């Protein structure tokens, strides 16, 4: 299973996105500044935008799910249970995973942004698509909720997961790093080899690298473990 970007070109007004590369099974992190084209790339990978030139080729990918940055854009039902059902899920399962079981009959718009984010993330994960695209899954969450979201992501053991995020404190374990800069997608490669060349690495990772540590992955715990190894 893989998704291949073949000399992809997409333009909108004065913005042009270009990208090539292959997304294999595993967790990919696409980082990059605001306005660099992360969300546009997510829409292209999801097949919701059509490239101007080049192609997005899916091999063995039968199902795709895109989780939008703003969770309220997903809402189609007046109740939380109904919302979970609209994803084709058993509401009890989704609500249990989102830790919202007590709120089944509430209006989704009465949830806080963080709770709503938890609900849509739980629904997207339970759908278990071959290709899961998560646009800023951690924004607006507090650190406890971000950690929970990371653990949910790390439990996914098959398929291709692409996380588009600028998160700088709580990150999941990933297999590969990509960066968007002014509309151009650059592959940094597999983790851990990709870590030193990661321009948008979070401050804690940069700090660990500067001290000579070589973290095995990108989480704060990985940075601390690597520091312990060199400090003894």
């Amino acid at each position, binding site marked *: 299973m893989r998704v291949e970007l073949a000399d992809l070109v997409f333009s909108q007004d004065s913005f042009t996105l270009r990208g090539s590369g292959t997304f294999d099974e595993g967790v990919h992190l696409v980082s990059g500044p605001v*306005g660099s084209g992360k969300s546009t790339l997510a829409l292209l990978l999801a097949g919701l935008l059509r490239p101007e030139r080049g192609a997005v080729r899916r091999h063995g990918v039968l199902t795709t799910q895109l989780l939008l940055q703003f969770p309220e854009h997903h809402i189609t039902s007046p109740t939380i249970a109904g919302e979970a059902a609209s994803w084709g899920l058993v509401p009890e399962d989704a609500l249990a995973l989102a830790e919202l079981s007590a709120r089944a009959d509430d209006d989704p718009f009465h949830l806080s942004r963080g709770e709503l984010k938890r609900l849509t993330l739980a629904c997207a994960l339970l759908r278990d698509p071959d290709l899961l695209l998560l646009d800023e899954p951690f924004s*607006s969450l*507090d*650190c406890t*909720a971000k950690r929970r979201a990371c653990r949910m992501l790390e439990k996914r053991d098959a398929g291709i997961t692409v996380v588009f995020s600028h998160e*700088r404190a709580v990150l999941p374990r990933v297999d590969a790093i990509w960066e968007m800069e002014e509309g151009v997608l650059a592959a940094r490669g597999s983790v851990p080899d990709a870590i030193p060349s990661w321009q948008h690495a979070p*401050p*804690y990772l940069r700090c660990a690298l500067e001290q000579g540590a070589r973290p095995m992955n990108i989480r704060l715990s990985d940075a*601390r473990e690597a*520091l312990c190894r060199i400090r003894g």
Partner: protein
Amino acid sequence: MIRIADLRHRLLDIPGLAVDARHIAVIGPNGSGKTTLLSVCSGIEEPEAGSVLLLDRPPSAVKVGWVGEFPDRTLLFSRVYDEIASTPRFRHRPCPETDRAVRAVAEVVGIRHLLGKKVAALSGGEKALVALAAACAGDPEVLVLDEADSHLDGVTAERVQRVVRESAAAHVLWCTQSMDVAATADCVLFMENGRVRHHGTPEEVFSALEETCFYPTLWRVSR
């Protein structure tokens, strides 16, 4: 000086608090009352009971600049220039003065190239910068930012921090989920269930949070 006395409003319950720091970071879990506190402090909401004084005045008598988490909800005009100009225009400032203010603040925030653009064509982060410029265009005495950095990348977030640091506002109330940013404030308020659980210098507050994920990531790797 920010003084809170016997404040009760929705889930907020703050018996008394006096903070005499310029840059105040407000942190805490989702749903702990951070946004509600900021709304009351900026005069957007009147408290059900108790009082808030900024610079010894009620918030309605203070020039407050507000930057929300979701700029889409506060941006009123379709063109970036008009959005930023709205602050002086609503105060009936003369056109040349308005124009000077808009260009000056756009320069400071680094968005001069966006002035002629339609707001709808901007990315989420660019909208946040426009909202910050509009808030600063009125020379606010108190600048309030409600998780304005939640949807910003590191480079843009640093730009926001610089603008905020250099602004002439007497107080900056900044709610953030970035503990590394909060660690650079003069004072930190940690909220939980509508109450201020800890307040003091970053050292004091984060030492009480060392066992939690609210401890700054940079402190974890550099200490």
